[in-house]
């Protein structure tokens, strides 16, 4: 059939974001990590003394902590961490208009469709290139209502008290080894403040781009959502494919005040030479709602478990997680919910797809502290295996101290079946089309939660990925 020949003739390496820009950064530290590197970062950012001290203390914690061995295989990571650049400053100052950005960087973001999306569907956009935010802009109507959407550096500079009140309170440096590393060398990320009662109708988006080889990106984001406010923040990330490994380790801290509602969506599509180890956590106060929508499609290794700490009565946390692990990829993802107040509720829904030699692991924690009476939690994780060589594992951790709590866990593993494929093929679909349809159906409950543009992108991606799945 001509159609199949076309499909077979396509390159299987379909990563759409594999383009790079040849540019000269204005400054970068020597490869590897040292106290000098940390001091250089702090001095380039012209930081207050307390921040430098914070960084150095975190560096100490990082060095003392052993490499975690409970999750994905990180045995090669030590060598990678010795070789990467911890700080690369692409330009002198951040732009408020795309015309302020150097042409090569601007072109990169244009190819990623960011300025176009900004006009159409977003309330504000931040764009990070290597170690720094190169662009940050918020539509005037939201600025007028007191919304702050800025680079983390400008947050520290322009709102020092608000910043210091919350910074590192949700994810302290000693939380885990990579939170410590991020605390030592953080650079870039967003500072977001949604004032009391303000409801953002369209999302804010931050886009993270790594361009150069052997890059380490360490963004740090702090989000404060005041009482009764509502907002949605979207994070996207891509990089070109290199034969050497790169490293990304972000820390996202979110404080949600009583009655507020916040959604954080991640579409992680790093190239498959990226280690992606991220700590994302929200502190959810009474009657407030936090929703994580976590899509992990790219990277070589991802370890990421968005968390909700439900600290106020009737706080609600929801985590929707979708992971795709293709050849050579390991997605070790899931979510954590901690119930620390009565009548708190949570749900985790996780869907993973493993193809070729890909491996996906669901790792999740549900903890209910004593005194969290009538807490309710439900965890559902479903895995779909495309080939015999694909692998999936489930590691649910459940710790219940409270007698009057209701916790449910369900897990399923399914394989794309011969009968399913035969049924679809008997209707005229090629094996690739049939696979793509089955996978799309499998992730439908999560895809329908995505903003339309991302749902379309996700579908397109799955079609491309399934083209190489036969045999």
């Amino acid at each position: 059939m001509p159609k199949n020949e076309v499909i077979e003739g396509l390159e299987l390496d379909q990563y759409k974001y594999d383009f790079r820009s040849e540019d000269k950064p204005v400054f970068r530290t020597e490869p590897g990590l040292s106290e000098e590197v940390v001091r250089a970062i702090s001095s380039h950012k012209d930081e207050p003394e307390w921040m430098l001290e914070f960084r150095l203390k975190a560096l100490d914690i990082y060095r003392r902590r052993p490499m975690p061995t409970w999750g994905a295989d990180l045995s090669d990571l030590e060598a990678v961490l010795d070789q990467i650049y911890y700080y690369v400053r692409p330009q002198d100052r951040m732009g408020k208009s795309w015309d302020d950005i150097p042409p090569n960087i601007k072109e990169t973001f244009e190819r990623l469709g960011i300025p176009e999306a900004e006009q159409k569907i977003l309330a504000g956009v931040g764009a990070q290139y290597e170690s720094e935010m190169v662009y940050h802009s918020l539509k005037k109507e939201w600025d007028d209502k007191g919304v702050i959407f800025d680079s983390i550096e400008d947050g520290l500079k322009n709102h020092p008290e608000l910043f210091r009140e919350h910074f590192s309170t949700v994810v302290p440096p000693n939380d885990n080894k990579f939170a410590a590393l991020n605390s030592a060398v953080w650079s870039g990320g967003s500072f977001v403040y949604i004032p009391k009662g303000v409801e953002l109708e369209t999302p804010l988006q931050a886009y993270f781009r790594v361009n150069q080889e052997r890059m380490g990106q360490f963004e740090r984001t702090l989000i404060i959502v005041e009482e009764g406010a509502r907002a949605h923040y979207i994070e996207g990330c891509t990089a070109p494919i290199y034969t050497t490994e790169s490293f990304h380790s972000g820390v996202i801290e979110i404080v949600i005040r009583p009655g507020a509602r916040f959604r954080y969506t991640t579409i992680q599509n790093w190239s498959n030479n990226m280690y992606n180890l991220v700590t994302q956590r929200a502190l959810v106060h009474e009657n407030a709602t936090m929703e994580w929508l976590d899509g992990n499609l790219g990277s070589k290794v991802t370890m990421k478990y968005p968390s909700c700490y439900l600290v106020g009565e009737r706080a609600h946390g929801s985590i929707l997680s979708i992971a795709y692990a293709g050849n050579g990829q390991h997605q070790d993802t899931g979510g954590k919910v901690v119930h620390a107040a009565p009548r708190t509720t949570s749900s985790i829904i996780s869907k993973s797809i493993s193809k070729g030699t890909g491996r996906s692991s669901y790792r999740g924690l549900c903890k209910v502290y004593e005194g969290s009476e009538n807490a309710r939690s439900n965890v559902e994780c479903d895995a779909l295996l495309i080939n015999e060589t694909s692998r999936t594992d489930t590691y649910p951790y459940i710790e219940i101290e409270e007698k009057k709590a209701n916790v449910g866990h369900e897990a399923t593993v399914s394989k794309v079946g011969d009968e399913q494929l035969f049924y679809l093929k008997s209707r005229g679909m090629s094996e690739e089309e049939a696979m793509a349809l089955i996978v799309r159906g499998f992730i439908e409950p999560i895809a329908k939660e995505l903003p339309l543009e991302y749902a379309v992108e996700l579908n397109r991606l799955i079609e491309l990925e399934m083209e190489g799945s036969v045999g």
Partner: protein
Amino acid sequence: MKRRIILDKDIPILKITNLHARVADSDVAILKGLDLEVGNGEIHAVMGPNGSGKSTLAKVLMGHPGYEVTEGRVTFKGDDVLDLEPDERALAGMFLAFQYPVDIPGVSIANFLRTALQARLEDGDLDLFEFQDLLLDRMKLLDMDPSFAERPVNDGFSGGEKKRNEILQMAVLRPTLAIMDETDSGLDIDALRIVSQGVNTLLEETPEMSVLLITHYQRLLNYIEPDRVHVMVDGRIVRSGGPEVALQLEEEGYADWADWADADKDAEVPA
């Protein structure tokens, strides 16, 4: 029902010659030298007891990977099909209405049919408005509620809904040859009537469509009248005739036919 249009008398739509097939990677032979010919616009029924290989025949004709053809030939419109993938057979105009339709969770019937129609286009995108019109038209023809198309394919469907979904797919995809594998199984009398009405409506609309009905019971043939009836026992057609054969079977049961097949087999033992 009257509908006789013979398009090309010389080339049968389906011709099966000495077909042998077994369960893949095993010695379990199921089809043992089957011959059958279906002309353009004809309705043929294949009847047989459990285990005679009727459903295997349906699956082998559509190219199910669970079976291996070891001998024989199958042509569709004069062209060999045994080397074709199931999707290639479908694009050529064959259709199998499944005995046990498969669930596709999260995929609506509309989405499923759109993908199937898109696969039939050499290039370009299916016009979504035209598709919507076609789907609504087909559902109206079959007296179905449009909301049915929004439900995920076969997921949580009753037996009757699954079979109606098969008929809807047939109506949208418009095959030249529809193979219907025990479409009547698992249906109560009301559901059977609704499903049969759907098939008859379709047959009236497209008289050139040929049908191979595979069934255990005569009751389906009260609703869909065949031109020819074949009795299948132990992997072969042991008798062919007009609709009267079905009635005879209904009265006498399969026991005698099985004996006949055994006698036949004995006769074939080489001297």
